[in-house]
C-alpha cells in the first residue's frame, strides 16, 4: 500500500518517489498545503476505491499513518 501511496504523493506534491517516506508530513514537505492535501485524499480515494469519513482524516499527520489508515479501510471492505 505504501508504494502506491508513495507514487500518488509524489505526483500530488510534485516530488520524485524517492523523496517520499512514511515520515513525510506538512513539516518536511514544502508543497504540502490544504489544497494539495485535499487532492492527495481524492487521489487515494480514486486509486483504492475508498471514501474516508472526516474523522478518519483528522488523525493523519504523516504519510505512514495515512498508509495505515488505507490498510484498515481496505480490510474493512474485504
Amino acid at each position, binding site marked *: 500500500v505504501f508504494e502506491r501511496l508513495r*507514487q500518488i504523493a509524489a*505526483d*500530488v506534491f510534485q516530488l520524485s518517489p524517492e523523496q517520499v517516506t512514511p515520515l513525510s508530513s506538512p513539516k518536511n514537505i514544502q508543497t504540502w498545503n490544504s*489544497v494539495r492535501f*485535499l*487532492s492527495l485524499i*481524492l487521489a487515494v*480515494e*480514486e486509486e483504492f476505491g475508498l*471514501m474516508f469519513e472526516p474523522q478518519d482524516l483528522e488523525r493523519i499527520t504523516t504519510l505512514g499513518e495515512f498508509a495505515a489508515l488505507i490498510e484498515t479501510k481496505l480490510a474493512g471492505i474485504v
Partner: protein
Amino acid sequence: MNPGDLRKDIDHLIASGKPRAATRSFIELWNQDRTVAGAEFITSRYELLREQLSLVPFRLAILRNCTLEPVIPLIRAGAFVNGIDLTVHLGGYNTYVDEMREQNSAIYRFVPHAAILAVEVSEVAPELWWGYSDLTPAQRRDVIARTVKIFADCVSAFRKNCSASLIIHTARQPLTASQGILDAQRADGQVAAVEEINRELRQLAAMYKGVYLLDYDALVSRYGRLQWRDEYKWSTVRLPVAAAHLKHLADEYLRYLIPLAGKMAKVLVLDLDNTLWGGVVGEDGFDGILIGTQYPAAPYHELQRVLLDFYRRGILLAICSKNNSEEAIEVLEKHPGLLLRPQHFAAMRINWNEKVQSLREIAAELNVGIDALAFLDDSSVEREQVREMLPEVTVIELPPNPADFAQTVRECPVFERLYLSAEDLQRANYYSSQRHRVELEQSLSSMEEFYYALEQEIRVSRVESATIARVAQLTQKTNQFNLTTQRYTEQEIAEMAAGPDLELYSLGARDRFGDLGLIGVAVTRPAQEICEIEVFLLSCRAIGRTIETAFLSYLVRRARELGISRVQGWFRPTTKNEPAQGFYSKHGFHCLTQTESGSLWALDLDRAEIACPKWIHMIIPEERS
C-alpha cells in the same frame, strides 16, 4: 510501459530535450492513468515544456459557489493532450455575482476566451432542495422566479462586460424528491420546479450569442446520482463531486473547450473489417461478416449509428482500409444491413498501401490539414503506427470489447460541435459533388477552360445577424487560406459588425455542381487615406479557383468608392497558412515592412487595379437594391 515507467520515461525525455516525444508519452500515460494523481503529474511536467510546444493557447475562467480546485489539474491535463495550452482562472468562492457584475473584476481583467458558471443551484435556492414541503404555491413561484432572475442578471452583466463564451451549468435534481413518489403525481412537484428552472436557463442561453448550456443534471445521471456526490466532502470542504467522478466533470468541460479552441476533427477516417462490421470480408465473405441488429453483430450496428449521427453533424467520413477494393465496395453498396453507403464517404482508400500514406492522401484530397483527421481502427498495431508517424492525427483508443466501441466514439470530444451552420449540414453534399469537379478539371486542357466551365457565381454581402455564427466559425476553423489567422467568437463578430470602424464581408459561392455555401470572410478598416484588410480568409473547399482574386477585387473597388488611396494588409505566417503566402505579391501589392510576426503589403490605387476574373459572376446584393 506501465504508468510508473512512463513517468520516468517522460522525465528522462524532458531532461534530454525531446518535448515532442515527451508529449506522445503524455498521451499514453493519460490513456492509461486518467486519475487525479496522473493529472497532477502531467500538469507539473507540462509546465516545463509549454514554451517549447506549439499548442493553442486558451484562457478559461471558472465562476463558482463550491470547491473546484481539485478538478483543475484534470481539465488542464486533458487539454494539454488535446493540443490546448490551458490557463485557468478560478473565481473567488461564492463571489460569482459580484465578479460578473463589476466591470473591472478579476475575471474580466483575466480576459478569458471562455467562462464556466459552475454554480450549484441548490445553494442559490436552498428552499427548493431542502425545504420544499414548507413552500406554498406562491412561495414556490417566487423562489423559481428569483433564482432565474439571478442568472439572467449575471448573464446580462457578463455580456455587457466581456465577449468570451459562457457555459452555464443546469440545476441538479434532488436524489429523492422530498414528497417521495407523490412528487411525480403533482404538476407543481419538486422535480417539476427544478425542470422549470432548467427550461428557463435554456431560454436564457438562447437569447445570447456565445452562451451555452451544460446539462449538469444529465451528466450526474449518466454516472449515477447516488454515486456522483460524496456528502462528507460536500459537508466538510464544499466539494460537489466524489473523487471518482472529478475526471468526468473535467471531460465534460473539455467537450466545450475543444470546439471553442478550434481543435475539432473535421474528418473521421475508419477501418472496415472488425470496425465498421464484424469479421474479415476477405476471409468470411459477403454472407459471413457480421452486420445487423442481432448479437453478435449489434455492436457494429451501433457504431454505424454513431457514424451516421456524426455525418449528420457535418463531420466527413472517410475509409482507410486494407482490403480488396471490389469486395469491400460490394458490401458497402449491397449488404442489406449496413447503415452507411458509399455516398456517405467523402474519400476512400481501400488498398494494400500503408495507412500512413493513405491518411496523407485523404487529407490532401479533402483539402484539410492532417491534424483535422481522426483515425478509428480496431488494430492496435495500425493505431500505434499512425501515432508514431503522424502525431497530429487524433487516434481514437478503442477498448478491446466491440460492445464498447460505439460509446467510446460517441464520447470523443473532438467531434463535439456547439452549433451547426447551414454549411455544416451541406458539407457532405458538397464533397460528393466534388468528384464531378475533379472529373471536369481532368477532362479540360487548361485551367481557364475549367474556370469557365465551372460557371462560378459569388455573392459578397455585409455580415448580418443570420451569418454571424458561420463567419465566427470560419475565423475559428480556417487555417490554410487565412492571411492573419485572427480567431473571433460570435459575440466579437456581432460587436465588430455593429461598430462604426470596421466593414465585415461574407462571401458565398456556387457553381454548376451546387452551392458551396458561405466560404469567405473579410474585415476591413477604412480610414481617411488607407483601408487596412484585417481579416481575409477562404474555406479550403474554395481554394484554387480564383475566387480570392474576385473577393479582393471587390474590396479594392469598395475602397476606391470611399475615396481611399491605398489598401494594405498583413500576412502573418503560421505553420499552416502557406497557401495564402504569395497572395498580396501575386496581386501587385508591394511589401512595406517585414517583422518577426509577418509582412505588411500595400496597393496604391492610383496606379493599380484588380479586376474580377472574367469567368466569375459577382453579385453584390446591396448594390442591386
